[in-house]
């Protein structure tokens, strides 16, 4: 293997020798530059590979043939080699990205680029303090030079501001270096001795050295200069600046602080966290894409700085965590900058142009997911390990701030992604060409490869090696196929998976699996309606199903969490597909991530740092002091998914604006994941009390409130899908209440809701979606009288609402019966009132749904409508058949579950004999009920037929009132504000308290961002003053800390 010094020598030698060529032969020159960068990358990659596989040992390179500290030495271990690969590859791709500018400005600019890559590599390798300084200055100068490649005239001002700050940094650095030298008698980094954070001597020198290196990392607020560069420089260069220079600078801080001792780490942590959170807050208000990326870059650097500050508790995982975060950041940020060179406009909305190239959307999604730390990318694994270590070390505040920052970051990144998917795309807004696309895809491939590598880490659960995840990825590759073919494959995949795993599940898990996997396949039948290729649908849907499948398979905390995030991400993309769903998808992903972070923290708290930790191990902490906190965190996460009142505001929009076949997926299926989590948690943790309050009681209250308020809000909706969405909140409230009762029948009730809610909500969403496909409106008062035109849809809505309202003989009644038996045992009285109130209110909105759509007066524009597409009806009819069968034979699904729950609680309150069920308190004979009702109904019907057998349909307006004959359906169809009297009495419950609360939270954060960003006045001198202020402030605080 060749020596890594060659990376430096080749870079430098090529830069020098470019001057020997004729300047006019630009293509040859550029070819040489690329070749040099390629060879450098090859060397770096070769070393990375050799070190990773153990084929090589860490290379200690002595220059001048003399051992350190007397001559400069270099070191290439695994982290160095990985960084070198990152740097040289980024350099190579950046050169390609900047090809036009490099060719225009000729060999000088190419030499500068080569030197920059060389210097950044040198920065990583060198072990000498002063050599560090030389490389830093080389980078500064080269940066100032490459900024000029930009066509943007403002870049000149930015470059000058950058030089001004570099001067200040170099002054501090030199003073720090020379006094460190004086103190240790050596310039070698390994000779730096442990120095306490102190007010004088070696410590002060160390402080100056460190702070200068930290300022290189563009910490908030001393980073105006860097942001200007990001905004105005050529994006190809910005990628290099962010990915390569930034990562190398981080490594330098790490390199220097490691020997100085752990006492310095809190300093890094503090600065890093401040920078991370504040930069992200400021970024919220940013509208320029590259400046946004700039804020995000400085934020990410802050995050990793904070992680460096945790190296004392990360132990062996340190490299894995920090490396995962650095590489995620670097790959994603570089990729985004390179993409930005293809987007013509500079506003975030202009990225909508990406839609014209579907693979670009995939790239964008990949990068956003990488930055936020979602699976299957390295940042995700890193975040998990970080959280575990932080909680185990008792650094919960650090974790909280990090997660807060990530949440804010995801807010603007996903908002941006939403713009790209949903906003008006400018004509010709994308300058796509093979080279830039190639660069982007090389980066995307790198990201996925890293994801796989990180998943392959020691004792790690590799998401990308699981069958469901692979299937989802395969569906990305299948995108060019026709939607119908893909749909068939998707259904086959789901059923195949279910057939494979179903045998191993306990009855409860089996019910969830049946709802989630084959249940999903049934809903997918409706997708046969869609023509064309339906880009983006199948990968997203299959990702969601993969997440669900893995969730059921999960045996450890990590597997559960990973599955949870995959599911969230997939469903986000699905929801975003809806026509008006941009803001709703955003709030969905934010709430989901917030919830996921609560789960993450909860798991970390429970595991105490032990990895991998089995889910069944949760019961070991049930008796510990922290158990209630674990309970609270996990419950908060799961309740976000079930959209409990207070955390629900994402749901109505997300479910209502989704596509016809997506709404049932996210409503009928996805919500069950939260219930599944709650079951798992309660099974392990049992009842917990916090400050004397039984938390299951709190859950019961939340469930009851959700059940009631969800129903009341549903009553007041004019939009059919919104109505159904609010109804889901209410239904999940019931289920939550059942779970929280913590008795056998309560759980059985919840299981019943899992099945029933899936069936009737999917059915209703499909029916309403079918109607929407024909009428193109979701506003119920604009419809009416559709019963004769869409009889099948009507039947499914009819059966759906009967089942849902709990009227015998359909299966909803079974739920009510179990409910009454369950509450007989419970000592909870007050929340019951709300549940009792919710029941009849449910009747209100259900009647409204069927009446205003299907009954009443048919509107003129609708006279020629046809029945909904047949593929939308097929699943509905399956559901109708199932509901009737389930109503008569509830035992087919429930008896086994009942037995299983009995094994948990150790009781068996229900006795199943034949078709009848008896409990301690009452009895229920579904067959008899059905028989009696059918008999009576048929008898009465026969009487009516006998009398009025020849009745004929009369015309629409053959009705009389107030001595007039009405003639306009619009004025005759009583539909808008249908429950006006109810609104008069109960309308106060509609006050959007929760919405205003969350609006206030986001408004406050946005306001803070708007206020803070005024700090960046654009004046280079002010920026320099910020740097000085930053240094002095940190100095005072650090010294105040020790005093």
């Amino acid at each position, binding site marked *: 293997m060749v020596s890594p010094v060659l990376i430096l020598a080749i870079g430098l030698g090529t830069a020098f020798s470019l001057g020997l060529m004729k300047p006019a032969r630009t293509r040859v020159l550029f070819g040489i530059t690329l070749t040099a960068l390629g060879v450098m990358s090859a060397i770096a990659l070769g070393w990375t590979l050799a070190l990773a596989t153990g084929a090589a040992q860490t290379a200690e390179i002595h220059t001048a043939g003399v051992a350190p500290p007397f001559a400069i030495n270099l070191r290439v271990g695994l982290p160095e080699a990985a960084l070198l690969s990152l740097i040289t590859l980024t350099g190579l791709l950046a050169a390609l990205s900047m090809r036009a500018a490099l060719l225009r400005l000729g060999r000088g600019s190419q030499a500068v680029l080569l030197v920059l890559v060389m210097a950044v590599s040198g920065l990583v390798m060198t072990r000498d303090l002063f050599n560090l300084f030389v490389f830093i200055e080389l980078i500064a100068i080269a940066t100032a030079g490459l900024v000029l490649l930009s066509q943007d005239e403002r870049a000149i001002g930015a470059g000058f501001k950058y030089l001004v700050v570099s001067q200040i940094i170099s002054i501090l650095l030199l003073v720090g270096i020379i006094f460190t030298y004086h103190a240790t008698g050596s310039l070698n980094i390994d000779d730096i001795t442990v120095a306490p954070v102190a007010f004088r001597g070696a410590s002060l020198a160390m402080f100056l050295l460190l702070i200068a290196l930290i300022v290189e990392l563009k910490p908030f607020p001393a980073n105006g200069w860097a942001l200007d560069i990001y905004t105005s420089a050529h994006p190809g260069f910005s990628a290099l600046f962010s990915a390569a220079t930034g990562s190398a600078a981080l490594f330098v801080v790490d390199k220097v602080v490691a020997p100085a001792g752990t006492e310095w780490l809190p300093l890094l942590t503090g600065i890093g966290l401040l920078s991370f959170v504040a930069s992200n807050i400021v970024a919220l208000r940013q509208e320029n894409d590259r400046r946004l990326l700039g804020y995000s870059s400085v934020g990410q650097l802050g995050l990793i700085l904070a992680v460096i500050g945790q190296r004392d508790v990360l132990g062996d995982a340190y490299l894995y965590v920090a490396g995962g975060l650095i590489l995620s950041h670097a790959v994603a940020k570089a990729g985004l900058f390179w993409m930005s060179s293809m987007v013509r406009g500079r506003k975030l909305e202009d990225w909508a142009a990406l839609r014209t190239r579907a693979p670009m959307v995939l790239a964008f999604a990949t990068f956003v997911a990488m930055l936020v730390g979602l699976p299957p990318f390295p940042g995700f694994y890193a975040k998990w390990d970080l959280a575990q270590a932080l909680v185990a070390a008792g650094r919960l505040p650090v974790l909280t701030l990090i997660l807060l920052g990530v949440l804010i970051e995801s807010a603007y990144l996903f908002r941006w992604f939403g713009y790209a998917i949903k906003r008006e795309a400018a004509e010709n807004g994308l300058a796509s060409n093979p080279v830039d696309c190639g660069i982007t895809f090389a980066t995307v491939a790198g990201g996925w490869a890293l994801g796989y590598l990180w998943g392959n880490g020691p004792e790690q659960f590799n998401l990308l090696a699981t069958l469901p995840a692979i299937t989802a990825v395969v569906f990305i590759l299948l995108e060019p196929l026709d939607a119908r073919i893909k749909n068939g494959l998707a259904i086959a995949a789901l059923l195949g998976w279910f057939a494979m795993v179903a045998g191993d599940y306990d009855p409860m898990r089996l019910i969830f699996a049946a709802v989630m996997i084959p249940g999903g396949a049934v809903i997918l039948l409706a997708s046969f309606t869609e023509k064309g290729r339906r880009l983006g649908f199948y990968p997203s849907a299959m990702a969601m199903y993969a997440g669900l499948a893995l969730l059921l398979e999960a045996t450890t905390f990590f597997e559960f969490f990973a599955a949870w995030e995959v599911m969230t991400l997939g469903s986000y993309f699905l929801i975003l597909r809806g026509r008006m769903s941009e803001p709703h998808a955003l709030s969905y992903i934010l709430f989901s991530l917030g919830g996921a972070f609560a789960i993450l923290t909860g798991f970390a708290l429970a595991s105490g740092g032990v990895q991998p930790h089995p889910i069944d191990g949760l019961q070991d902490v049930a008796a510990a002091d922290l158990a209630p906190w674990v309970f609270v965190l996990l419950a908060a996460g799961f309740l976000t998914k079930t959209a409990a009142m207070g955390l629900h505001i994402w749901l109505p929009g997300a479910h209502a604006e989704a596509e016809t076949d997506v709404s049932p997926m996210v409503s009928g299926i996805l919500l069950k994941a939260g219930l599944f989590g709650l079951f798992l948690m309660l099974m392990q943790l049992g009842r917990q009390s916090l400050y004397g309050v039984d938390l299951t009681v709190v859950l019961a209250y939340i469930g009851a409130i959700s059940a009631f308020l969800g129903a009341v809000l549903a009553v007041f909706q004019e939009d059919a899908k919104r109505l159904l969405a609010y109804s889901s909140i209410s239904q999940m409230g019931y289920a939550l209440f059942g779970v929280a009762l913590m008795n056998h029948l309560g759980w059985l009730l919840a299981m019943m809701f899992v099945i029933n809610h899936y069936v009737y909500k999917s059915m209703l969403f499909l029916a309403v979606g079918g109607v929407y496909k024909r009428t193109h409106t979701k506003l119920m008062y604009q419809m009416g009288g559709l*019963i*004769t035109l869409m*009889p099948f849809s009507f039947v499914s809505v*009819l059966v759906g609402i009967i089942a849902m309202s709990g*009227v*015998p003989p359909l299966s909803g009644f079974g739920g*009510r*019966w179990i409910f*009454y*038996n369950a*509450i*007989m045992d419970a000592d909870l*009285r*007050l929340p*019951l*009132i709300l549940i*009792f109130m919710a*029941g*009849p209110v449910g*009747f*209100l909105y259900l*009647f409204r749904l*069927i*009446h205003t759509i299907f*009954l*009443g*007066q048919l509107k003129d524009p609708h006279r020629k409508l046809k029945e909904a597409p047949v593929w939308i009806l097929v699943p509905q009819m399956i559901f109708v058949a199932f509901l009737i069968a389930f109503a008569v034979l509830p035992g087919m699904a429930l008896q086994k579950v009942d037995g299983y729950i009995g094994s948990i609680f150790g009781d068996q309150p229900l006795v199943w004999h034949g078709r009848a069920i008896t409990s301690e*308190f*009452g*009895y*229920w*004979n579904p067959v*008899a*009920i059905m028989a*009696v*009702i059918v008999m*009576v*109904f048929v008898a*009465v*019907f026969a*009487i*009516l037929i006998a009398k*009025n057998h020849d*009745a*004929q*349909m*009369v015309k629409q307006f053959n*009705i009389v*009132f107030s001595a007039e004959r*009405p003639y306009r359906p619009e004025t005759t*169809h*009583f*539909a808008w504000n*249908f*429950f*006006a*009297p*109810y609104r*008069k*009495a109960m309308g106060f419950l509609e006050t959007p308290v929760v919405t205003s609360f969350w609006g206030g939270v986001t408004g406050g954060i946005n306001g803070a961002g708007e206020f803070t960003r005024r700090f960046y006045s654009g004046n280079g001198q002010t920026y320099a003053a910020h740097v000085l202020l930053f240094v002095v402030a940190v100095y005072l605080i650090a010294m105040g800390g020790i005093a």
Partner: protein
Amino acid sequence: MTFEWIQIPYALLTLFIILNYGLLMTAVVRKLAARVGGRPGIPVYQNYIDLVKNFALRSKISHGVMYYLGPVFRLTGGIGLILFVPTIYGSSWAQNFAFAGDLVLALYFVFFGTLGMALGAGESGHPHSAIGVSRGLSQVTMAELPLALAVYAIAVQYQTLSITEIVAAQQGGLFNWTLFTNPLAVVAAMFAFVGTMMRSPFDVVLAPQEIPIGPPTEYHSAYLALMQTNRAIFPIAKTIIYMNLFFGGATSWAEFAIKAFLLYMIPAVIGVVHPRFRVEQSIRFFLKWGLPVGVLAILTV
């Protein structure tokens, strides 16, 4: 309890008795109300005349399938309710099909007819039908609440959901009635009873005197006949439930007749002397008075 074929003629007999009782009693009540107002009122057989007349009429008019089925649902709801509740405690034959389900079944089956009726009326396209349904549903959400609470209270009190067992628990003297063992629950339930019997002050749903509002607006002939049949038996069916739950049930048909009549008179008397509430007023009324009593009932069990 299991099914035997003999139960079918028994149940039909019960049904027949209750139908006649309902027809007569409603007429009597109407006559009483008229006399209170200084009018002569209808003859007691008037309901039979109406019913026979309407059954004799045939109609060629239909507004659609649901319109056609509306009265069927309605009457099925009424008959079914009677069939699912045991009428006479201790009687060997007047137990109907109570083995199919317990109190919960009765409570939820009440909605069956209402729903079907509302759907049928809705298809007629008459706005007054829809307005009536809107009012009725809005009102019933609150009116039924005290009953639900009261039922829960007594179910907990007697530790059973079986109507027969609840009645059994009240045997052995006046003071074993729920009325005395759990007066709060009974008061709460009576709020619901008065509120759902479609009498003043809670009858704005049908607004029977002024303009025809409410579900039956567009129904006539045999359709109306089915509904009139239901109107005769449904209140009785409901009264039976109240009687069984709160007033000791009935051990004989005579006891049944008296208790049903007295219970039925409660809303009738209140209706005669009270003006009508608007829907939001009645909702607030139940919220203010019915709900707290119900809450007290479940808290004090």
